[in-house]
C-alpha cells in the first residue's frame, strides 16, 4: 500500500458518505430520474477510457481503447439527455406550452 492508495481510500469513503447523505430524503416520484441521473454521472468512467486510449500503442490496445471510449461516451451523452427528457415532464403542466 502506498500513499496514493491510502489517499484514494479516504476520498472513496468520504464520497460514499456524501452519496448516502445527499439523496437520503428523495421522494419516490423522483426515483426513476435520480437513477437515470446517477447513471449519467458514472459515465465519468469515460475519463478513464480517454486516458487509457491515449496510452494505446498496439493494434489490440487501439481497438479496446476505441471501444472503451465509445461505450463511455454513450453512457455520458445518452444518460444526461435521457434524464433531461424525463425531468422536462415535471415542468410545463397546467396548459403550459411544450
Amino acid at each position, binding site marked *: *500500500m502506498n500513499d496514493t492508495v491510502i489517499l484514494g481510500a479516504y476520498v472513496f469513503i468520504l464520497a*460514499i458518505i456524501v452519496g448516502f447523505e*445527499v439523496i437520503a430524503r428523495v421522494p419516490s416520484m423522483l426515483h426513476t430520474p435520480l437513477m437515470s*441521473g446517477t447513471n449519467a454521472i458514472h459515465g465519468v468512467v469515460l475519463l478513464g477510457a480517454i486516458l487509457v486510449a491515449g*496510452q494505446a500503442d498496439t493494434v489490440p490496445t487501439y481497438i479496446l481503447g*476505441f471501444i472503451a471510449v465509445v461505450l463511455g461516451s454513450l453512457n455520458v451523452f445518452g444518460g444526461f439527455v435521457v434524464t433531461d427528457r424525463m425531468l422536462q415532464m415535471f415542468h410545463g403542466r397546467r396548459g403550459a406550452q411544450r
Partner: protein
Amino acid sequence: MNPNVIGVAYLISALLFIFGLKQLSSPVTARQGNRYAAVGMTIAIVATLLDRSILDHHRGNYILIGIALVIGAIIGIGSAQRVKMTAMPQMVAIFNGMGGGAAALVSILEFLRLSTGTHLAPAGQGATIMISTAIGCVSFAGSMIAFAKLQELMTGNAIRYPFHRELIPVLLVVIAALGVVAAFVTPNRAVFFALVALALILGFALVIPVGGADMPVIISLMNSLTGVAAAFTGFVLQNELLIVAGALVGASGTLLTQLMAKAMNRPLTNVLFAGVGAAPVGAGMTALPAGATVREISVDDAAMLMSYAGQVVIVPGYGLAVAQAQHQVRELASLLEERGVTVKYAIHPVAGRMPGHMNVLLAEADVPYEQLYEMDEINGEFQHTDVALVVGANDVTNPAARTDASSPIYGMPILNVDQAANIIVMKRSMRPGFAGVDNPLYFDPKTAMLFGDARDSLSKLVSSVKAAGGALVAS
C-alpha cells in the same frame, strides 16, 4: 497542461456532481441539478483531453479518441431523444451496461499495460484492476439481460436453472481466487481472461432468474455496481475524480436500490434468489373460489357509472403506458370533473415499471400534480370511493398480496382497490400480470371488466360521458 490546472478542474467537477445530485432529489430543482452535473462532466472531459500523457507522447491518438467520442455522442443522444417514455427503464439499463463495459475495458487495458511477461502490476493497482474488471463485467452482462427482458427480446419471466442458488457463491469464490492469482502470484493472461469470462457469466447468472416485475431493483443495483467499478478504475488510474464520482453513484445507487426494494416489499435477497413468476402455474390460483366468473361491462354503462359518481379514483398501471393512453385518461378526468365528480389518481410506488415512472408519464399528459396521490395517502380513501377505475394495472391491485399467504406476491403493499363500491378494470385480456400471478380482484362481484385496448376504450368512454352530459342537460 499543468497537472494542477487539471486538478482544479476535477475539483470543480466533483463539486458540481455533488451539488447536481443534491438538486436531483427535489422535484423543483431536479432538471437544473442534472444540468449542473452535465456541466461538471464537460469540464472533466475537456481537462482529461489535455492530460500531459496524451498531449506530450501520443498526439496521434486524439483522432482515435475524437472519433470514438463523436460516435458515442451521436448514438447516445440520438437514441435518448427518440426513445418512448414507456421504454425509459430499458434505456437506462443499456446506458448503464455501456458504463460497466467501459470500466471493465479500462481495467483490462491497464492490466495488459502493467503486467507484462513475468512482471506483476504494483500491488495496489493489481488488486483494484481485478475488482473493477470483475464488477464492470458483471454490470455489463447483467444490464444487457435486463435490457433484453424489458425490451422483450427474451421472456420477461424468471428463468430457473438447476443449482442457481449454489452457482452464484461458487462463481464469486472462483472469481476472487483468480483475481488474487492474477494480481499477486502470476500475471498470466489466461488466468485474467478466465476471470473476465466468469464475471460475465456471473452477470448473466444473477439476472436471468429475476422476473420482469423485479427488474427496476436490478437496474438500480447494476447502476450502483457500475458506480463502484468506476470508482475502482479511479484507484487503478490514480484519478481522484473517478473515485469521487464512482463512489457517489455507488452509495446513492445502493440507497436507491434499498428504497425501491422496500417500496415493493421485496428484500434484495428475494429479488435475486426467489424468482417471482417462476412459481408453478396454479400456485397463485389457490385464492380463487371454484367456478368464479368475471363480469363484463359495456362502455356506456361504465360511463354512466362514473358520470354519476361522487368520487372516482383512477389507478394507472403499465398497461396505460403501453397503450400511450395518458392523454385520454386526462381528458376523461377533466370531463368528469366538469360534472362535479372528484377525480384522484392513485399512484403505486412501482406503477409503470420503475418507481416514479408513472409520475413522469402523467406529467407528460399535463395531469395536475395535486391530483396524484401516493399509496399511503389514497388507501384510506377507497372506502369512500364510488368507482375505482383500474387502467392496465394488475399486480399492484391484487388483494392476494394482503390475504393469501401462499401467493408469491404476498406481503407486497398494494392499493386497496377492492374496498371501493364499484371497480372497473380496463384490460386487454385475462392474461396474468408481469408477476405471472392471477388476480382475485377480477372475480370480485363488485368488479366489472372492460376488455380492449386502453386507449381505444378510454376514447369511447370520453365520447360516452360527453353524450351522457348532453342527455342530462336535455332532460
